[in-house]
C-alpha cells in the first residue's frame, strides 16, 4: 500500500472548509460526467479520434489544482481533461473544442489533446508522452529568471518517466532549483505495458534522487492526500526550495482508450474490480459522510449538479459553429 507523506497533526487539508471539500467531490464528479459524455459523443459519432479516459484517477486533478493559484502554470497529457477543467478552463469551450467547433478553446484546431488557456496557466495538453513536461519546467524557469513567485506543475504518467527529455529537464530543475512540481500519476501501466516491464526501478519517486531533489509517494486516490502533497511541494517551490516529484499511486479503471476493454490480456478483471472499489469518488463520498458534511442525498445532489453542468456544456458545444474552411491556415504563425 502507498505510504502517506510526512503529515503530522496539521495537514494543509485540515484547513479546507466544508465547501472546499464538497468542491473537491463536485470537481471529481464533473470530470466523471464529462468523460461519460465524451464517450457518448464518441459513440454517437460527434467526437472524432481516440479518447483517453481517466476513470478512477479523478483525485489527482481535483486535489492538485486546488493547491495551485490561477497564475500558476500547468501542463498535462492526452489524459488530462481533469487538469484543465479543475484549473478553471471554461468547460463549455473545452467541450466545444473536443468536438471540433469554432467556439472551442483552440477554434477546433487542437482537440482534446491540445487544450490551451494561458489565462488559467494552461500551457497545453500534449499528445507526445513527456512532450509537455519541458514546457512546464520552462514556465518555472521563467518564474525563476523573472523572480516572480508563480510555480508550475506538470501532470504525466508513469510511462513518461522513461522518456529522455524528462530526465534532461529534471536535471535542470534540480540544478537551478526551479519552482516546479512533477506530478506522476502512477497507474501501473503505460498503455498495455506494466511498470514492472518498463523499468528496473518501479518506485518512481526514488528515481529523482539522481537529480538532487525530493520524491514522495502518496495515495493518489485520496484527494486530500494529493492536496497536502501538492501544497507542500508548491510552498517549497515558491520559497525557492526547488522541485518535488510526487508519485501518486492510482489506477485507470477504464481502458487505455475507448476501444480497449481495460482487462483481459494485460490486466485481470479482478484487478480492475479491486481498484474500482477504491475509486476516489467512492472513497471520498464516504469521507464526506464520515465527517458529517454530506448525507447520501447531498452526495447525490452534487453528482446531479455536476451532470447538469456537463449537460449544459454539451448543449453549448453541439450548438457551436463548425469552423469555416476559409480559416484553415489561420494561426500557423502568430
Amino acid at each position, binding site marked *: 500500500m502507498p505510504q502517506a507523506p510526512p503529515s503530522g497533526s496539521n495537514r494543509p487539508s485540515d484547513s479546507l472548509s466544508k465547501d472546499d471539500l464538497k468542491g473537491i467531490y463536485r470537481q471529481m464528479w464533473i470530470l466523471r460526467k464529462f468523460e461519460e459524455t465524451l464517450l457518448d459523443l464518441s459513440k454517437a459519432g460527434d467526437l472524432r479520434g481516440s479518447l483517453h479516459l481517466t476513470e478512477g484517477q479523478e483525485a489527482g486533478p481535483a486535489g492538485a489544482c486546488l493547491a495551485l493559484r490561477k497564475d500558476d502554470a500547468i501542463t498535462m497529457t492526452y489524459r488530462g481533461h481533469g487538469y484543465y477543467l479543475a484549473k478553471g478552463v471554461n468547460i463549455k469551450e473545452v467541450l466545444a473544442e473536443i468536438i471540433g467547433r469554432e467556439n472551442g478553446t483552440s477554434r477546433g484546431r487542437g482537440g482534446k489533446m*491540445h487544450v490551451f488557456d494561458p489565462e488559467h496557466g494552461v500551457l497545453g495538453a500534449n499528445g507526445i508522452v513527456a512532450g509537455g513536461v519541458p514546457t512546464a519546467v520552462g514556465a518555472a524557469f521563467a518564474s525563476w529568471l523573472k523572480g516572480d513567485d508563480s510555480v508550475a506543475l506538470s501532470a504525466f504518467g508513469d510511462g513518461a518517466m522513461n522518456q529522455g527529455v524528462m530526465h534532461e529537464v529534471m536535471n535542470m530543475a534540480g540544478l537551478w532549483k526551479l519552482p516546479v512540481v512533477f506530478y506522476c500519476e502512477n497507474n501501473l501501466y503505460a498503455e498495455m505495458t506494466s511498470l514492472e516491464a518498463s523499468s528496473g526501478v518501479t518506485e518512481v519517486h526514488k528515481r529523482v534522487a539522481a537529480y538532487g531533489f525530493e520524491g514522495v509517494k502518496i495515495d493518489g486516490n485520496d484527494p486530500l492526500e494529493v492536496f497536502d502533497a501538492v501544497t507542500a511541494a508548491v510552498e517549497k517551490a515558491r520559497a525557492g526550495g526547488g522541485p518535488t516529484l510526487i508519485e501518486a499511486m492510482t489506477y485507470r479503471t477504464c481502458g487505455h482508450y475507448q476501444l480497449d476493454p481495460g482487462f483481459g490480456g494485460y490486466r485481470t478483471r479482478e484487478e480492475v474490480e479491486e481498484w474500482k472499489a477504491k475509486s476516489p469518488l467512492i472513497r471520498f463520498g464516504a469521507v464526506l459522510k464520515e465527517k458529517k458534511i454530506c448525507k447520501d442525498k447531498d452526495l447525490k445532489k452534487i453528482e446531479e449538479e455536476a451532470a447538469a453542468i456537463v449537460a449544459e456544456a454539451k448543449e453549448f458545444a453541439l450548438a457551436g459553429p463548425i469552423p469555416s474552411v476559409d480559416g484553415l491556415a489561420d494561426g500557423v504563425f502568430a
Partner: protein
Amino acid sequence: MSEMTYSDAVKDAIRMELRRDPDVVMFGEDIAHHGGMMQVTKGLLDEFGDKRMIDTPISESGFMGMGIGAALRGLRPVVDLMFFDFALVAMDQIQNQLAKTIYMSGGKVKVPLTIRTQGGGWKGAAAQHSQMLEALFVHVPGLKVVTSSTPADAKGLLQASIQDDSPVLFIEHKQLYGVKGEVPEGDHIVPLGKADVKREGSDVTIFSYSYCVHLALEAAEKLADQGVSAEVVDLRTLNPLDFDTVAASVSKTHRAMVVHDSYARCGIGADLAAQIQEKLFDELDAPILRVTGGDVSVPFAGELENALLPNVERIVATANELVS
C-alpha cells in the same frame, strides 16, 4: 554605418535586443562564460548577468522545450544550438511542440522564441558537424526559417527574428563569421519574409541564401566576363518564402537555378523548382537546374568535401548550360 564582421553583427543584434527588452534571455551550451563556440556572444554575460545569459547542461531537447514554456510565460528566449546538427537531438521539441503550439492553440498564444544556430561545411568537421538542415524545418509548418549572407542582413534579420511573436529558426554559417561589411549602427530591422536582389541581371537568375550567395556572386562576376548577365537573389527567409520576388526575377530572366550547400533531395532547390514550374511555367525558357551539396553525408577529407559542396565553377557551368 560601421564596418564589422558577420560575427560582430550577430553579437550586435543580440546585444541590441537584450538592451531593448528585459524579457529577452539567451541560453545554450557554453554561451555565457565562454562566449560561445564561435565566440559570438563573448562579453554579453558581463553586460547582462547570469539571469539573461545562461549556460545550460548538454540537454538540447530539454532546454528547447523549456524555451517554449518560458516564451508562453512572457519571456522572449533566444535558444542557442551550438551546431545545426544538434537540432536533430531536439526534434520532438522543435517540430511537434514549438512549431505547432500556436496552431494547436487556435492562434491564442504567442511563442516568441528564436533558435540561433550555425551550420555548413568546408571546415573538415565531417558528417555530424557540417550540415545545413534548413529544408527539414521548412518542411514542417510553423517555424519561420531565416538565413543571412551579409553582416548587415545578419543584424537586421536577427533583431527582427527576436522581435517576432512566432518561433524563428535563425541559421548562421561557419564560413560567414569572418566576412566583413557595412552595418547600420543602433537598431536595425530587416523584415522577415523578404528576399533581396543582391545583383541585378537579365539572362539567368541564381537563387541562393546564406554562404552560397557569396559563391553565386563570384560566379556572376565570372559570368559577366563571359557575357552572361546573372541576377543573384538572396532568398534570406526560407519560410515564409518571398515568392513575389522570385516571380519578378523569373519573369525577367526566364531562366532559373538554385544554389545551396545542403542536400539535394527534397531540398530548398527542389521546392523552389516545383513552385516556379507550378506557377510560372510559361515564363520559363529552360528547365530549372540545381547546384547543391548532393545526397552524400559530408565527408572528412578535404578533397572529398570540396568535391561534394558547391563551388564557383559548378555554378558558372550550370548557368552557361541554362543560357546556351
